[in-house]
């Protein structure tokens, strides 16, 4: 997607988080955080030039994208340097810019709770919520800083 669309998606996901109780609705609260963090990281990666702004949308299969055509139709294609599904999926061939490294590290922390707590029946408690919240806020802070400082007129704060 384009940078401004990623930021708009983050705004939607962030607002949706507020609808969910972090403990009672952990799975959805978490998934909105994960989706929002990924959206902002994708925007920041476009700002750094590591990936490209385009209308190639990730499927669940790395490097396979739904590519939108001008007539509104779409097709599956193999593409590179496009939006990530999650951090590390697909892996980027270039090093992560220093300015984004802590966002990636925080996103990886957030990802560690996905399988045990959402896909399986791992413990969901205040400690888990706090760890996820901290990781999410770090992703947002760092990615937003990159977007704001480098892309004129676009910011997420």
């Amino acid at each position: 997607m384009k940078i401004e669309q990623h930021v708009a998606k983050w705004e939607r996901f962030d607002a949706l988080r507020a609808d969910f109780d972090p403990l009672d609705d952990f799975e959805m609260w978490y998934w909105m955080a994960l989706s929002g963090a990924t959206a902002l990281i994708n925007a920041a990666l476009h700002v750094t030039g590591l990936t490209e702004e385009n209308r190639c949308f990730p499927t669940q299969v790395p490097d396979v994208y739904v590519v939108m055509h001008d007539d509104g139709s779409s097709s599956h294609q193999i593409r590179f340097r496009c939006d990530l599904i999650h951090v590390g999926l697909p892996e980027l061939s270039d090093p992560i810019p220093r300015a984004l490294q802590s966002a990636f590290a925080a996103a990886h922390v957030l990802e560690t709770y996905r399988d045990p707590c959402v896909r399986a029946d791992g413990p969901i408690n205040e400690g888990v919520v706090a760890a996820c919240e901290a990781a999410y806020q770090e992703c947002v802070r760092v990615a937003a800083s990159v977007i704001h400082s480098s892309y004129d007129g676009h910011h997420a704060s």
Partner: protein
Amino acid sequence: MMGIMLPKLHRDKAERIEHSLNKCSMTNYEALIEGAMLAGTHWFNYAVHIYGIAEPSEDTMHAEYLTGARRLKVSLIAPQMLAALDEIESMRPHFVRGDVAGCEKVGHRALELLNIISTAALSARPYQLQEQPLPPAQEPSLYTAHDPS
């Protein structure tokens, strides 16, 4: 390392996520699609374990990750459930990860598909114990009989 999810745990998780989705308005289509995917996948895993298609240690995380053999088997035993999960996954690139404008209709459709999956899952029983043979899949014949004429 994740523990093994027994069928009841998948059902509990699915129902928990469905309960959370009740807090979403229909305009929150991204949340509804993602929730339908998460809950639908739990229902899907519940069903394939009950059907006897897969062991509890062989969970599916996404419909795209089904092996060819398992996909074929599910398509014969629970075709509507598989089609519904496939459709939910197909919505995600356009409406969740992409910029295609969604609307209430999209949110409604996600919940309809989730309902199809949960309904199929709750009626699942071991396929090898079913009294009636399963209806044949509608597919082209793999072999064409040789016509001597």
